[in-house]
């Protein structure tokens, strides 16, 4: 038995009635960070002793995503990260086998598919979750090989009847489930007692979206093609949702051209402060430096630096919008110098989650973890300004 303390969910701000799509600055790590931070809302990060990331869209297969994930979540360097390829059953199995202090994150960001992320924190106190049954079978109607090529056998009835149908039959459940994760809403409804809530995704993140949508405890089915895990949740744990209203995907263009160069030495020096949103604090006068530097901006001291967390809210001091084609970056995009609240520190950041050009001087927003560029194949993570909803819908002055 596992105890679920909290659930956090995240949906990208882009898309329409058919579902959400990721922004150009989002990937499985940024989505996972957003959901994980929602799940940890208020919880002490020191209580997290392990992270499991389940997705089929790992940004790097070689090179590692764990440090970026820990950085974005604000977790210490000694927390083990498991990067797992899988769907909803893998998330169910990770949760059911997890020790207290484990953050299990499921992320979906498939090419052309439904994007979203959810995370569950396993703890000492909360909602009991137990295994009802598990069946692992093979009927790969949809497949994807390591070269990224997806194939569809194109036989939905075979998939429905012999795939999921076969799995449900094998599970031999005593009661009908309250929700089925991993299949479209219509197919889920056919298998459920009552009318389950429509879920925003069908992959790894769908299970905790399903649990979060429950009105009472009961059996939930985590499925992926011909495999399924059935679990029973005692009741509904607290849910924190980071699910902004969906906006239509703005028009943008990408220009072919040279890749953005990267110096990995410079990347490594900046990595911790850049991903953890930390300034260096002068031991002599307390001045904050972003980025960290050898000699204090204010008093000239050259030693005694410590790191200090930066505020994640601020106001736009100046902002511009780049329309001209820039190879490797989707245009247009807005760049802003943001005055962070109450610390006398400004940051130069990209604007995210708003149509380019819609943010003006004086608008407020929060700083969120995003992938600002991909440089010669390496994701470059940093913080971007997510304008407050009111700001993003008014015409900017820039």
């Amino acid at each position, binding site marked *: 038995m596992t105890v679920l303390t909290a659930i956090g969910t995240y949906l990208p701000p882009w898309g329409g009635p058919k579902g959400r799509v990721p922004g150009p600055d989002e990937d499985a790590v940024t989505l996972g960070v957003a959901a994980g931070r929602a799940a940890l809302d208020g919880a002490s990060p020191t209580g997290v002793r392990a992270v499991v990331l389940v997705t089929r869209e790992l940004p790097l297969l070689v090179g590692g995503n764990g440090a970026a994930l820990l950085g974005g979540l604000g977790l210490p360097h000694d927390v083990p990260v498991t990067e797992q390829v899988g769907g909803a059953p893998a998330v169910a199995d990770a949760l059911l086998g997890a020790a207290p202090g484990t953050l299990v994150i499921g992320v979906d960001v498939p090419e052309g598919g439904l994007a979203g992320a959810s995370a569950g924190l396993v703890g000492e106190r909360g909602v009991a979750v137990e295994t009802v049954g598990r069946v692992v079978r093979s009927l790969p109607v949809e497949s994807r090989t390591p070269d990224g090529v997806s194939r569809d056998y194109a036989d939905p009835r075979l998939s429905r009847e012999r795939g999921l149908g076969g799995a449900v039959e094998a599970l031999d459940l005593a009661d009908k489930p309250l929700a089925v994760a991993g299949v479209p809403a219509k197919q889920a409804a056919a298998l459920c007692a009552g009318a389950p809530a429509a879920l925003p995704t069908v992959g790894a993140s769908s299970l905790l979206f399903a649990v979060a949508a429950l009105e009472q405890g009961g059996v939930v089915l985590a499925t992926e093609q011909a495999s399924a895990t059935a679990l029973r949740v005692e009741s509904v744990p607290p849910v924190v949702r980071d699910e902004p209203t969906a906006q239509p995907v703005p028009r943008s263009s990408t220009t072919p051209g040279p890749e953005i160069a990267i110096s990995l030495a410079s*990347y490594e020096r900046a990595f911790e402060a850049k991903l953890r949103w930390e300034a260096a604090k002068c031991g002599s006068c307390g001045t904050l430096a972003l980025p960290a530097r050898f000699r204090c901006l204010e008093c000239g001291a050259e030693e005694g630096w410590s790191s200090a967390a930066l505020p994640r809210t601020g106001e736009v001091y*100046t902002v511009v919008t780049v329309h001209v084609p820039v190879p490797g970056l989707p245009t247009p995009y807005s760049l802003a110098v943001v005055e962070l609240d109450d610390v006398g520190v400004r940051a*130069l950041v990209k604007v995210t989650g708003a149509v380019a050009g819609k943010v003006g001087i004086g608008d407020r927003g929060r700083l969120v973890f995003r992938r600002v560029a991909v440089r010669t194949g390496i994701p470059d993570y940093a913080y971007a300004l997510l304008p407050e909803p009111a700001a993003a819908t008014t015409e900017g002055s*820039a």
Partner: protein
Amino acid sequence: MRRVAVVGAGMTPFAEHFGLGVKDLVPMAVSEMAAHVDKGLDRADIQAAWFGELSSTDGFAAGILADTCGLLDIPVTHVENACATGNDAVRNATYAVGSGAVDVALVVGADKVRESSARSTFWEWAAMTRDQAWDYPLGLVAPANFALHVARYLHESPATREHLAMVAVKNHKHALPNPKAQLRFEITVQQALDAPRVVEPFGLYDCTPQSDGAAALLLVAEDVVDRYTDRPVWVRGVGLGLDRVMHQHKRDMTTFPPTVKAVKAAYAMAGVTAADIDVAEVHDCFTGVELISYEDLGFCERFGAADLIEKGVTAVGGAKPVNPSGGLKAKGHPPGATGVAQCVEIVEQLRGEAANQVDGARTGLAHNIGGPTAVSAVTVLSSERG
């Protein structure tokens, strides 16, 4: 310090010189400079050279100048100070001549922006002046650097996009008679406002073109000036100023502190004030930068630039003509050459031989700002010995 005079000035046209390398443009500019020396130049007189250049596909900068100009027996120093390179090369040569170390010094500036493909220029040139971890990957392309300042300036000052357009209109008009200018056509305020957006608030006509070119000056000590001309132009003041490199660390982005520092030093050395400047070549890589620079150079009070451009004060014929050559905006902007070419223009203005002559100009100023906005160099030139 000894007085220093300019006795020769020359430049190539600024253009897309696809057919010419830096190896060709440099000797062309030097030969034109030599031909401009009233009483002639024996190249054996040149004792040292300073060469301003940011980047080239032709190889090692100082060696290229020595090799292509047949100056193999003198020291050549490469100067690189972002967009302030040209006027900084002038400053260094002025110190060498003024100190008595050499009597005759050559200053050359050159660059070829069009050696990069049009679409890769941003990344290749941005890599030289951005923090590679914090700023570069955000897509802080050159126009964005300046637009961040100008957006705030438009927010705080009475200036509007129309005032930016007026700068473009003026400088395009000024370039018309200049045979060395890259963009020799007039535009209207409406055309500038309607042009495709580059980096809001800048449209296409708010931006300098991508240019190739070279320029050269001959600086000599007052002791030997009579050997070369009876109409010298004196280098009365030079100045260089710096600021925090990252925009995040610049507290007031409606002004360029490097310019304020550089011009203060140059005015003090020259013993002049802004009121004494009859003609100026100001760094208008983007239109709004010219407006902010009016204020930083002391041509008007803070936030008074909109009024100045609106009333035509800075047009040729006005009380404080700025960029009679067309400026970077219309003459062009090969960075290493730009400051040197500004001095070529001012020398011609002060000798009464400019293509777009300001009547009776006796004292002039050349100004660069760059890096992206963390360095400025200013040169004050005068027909009066002082």
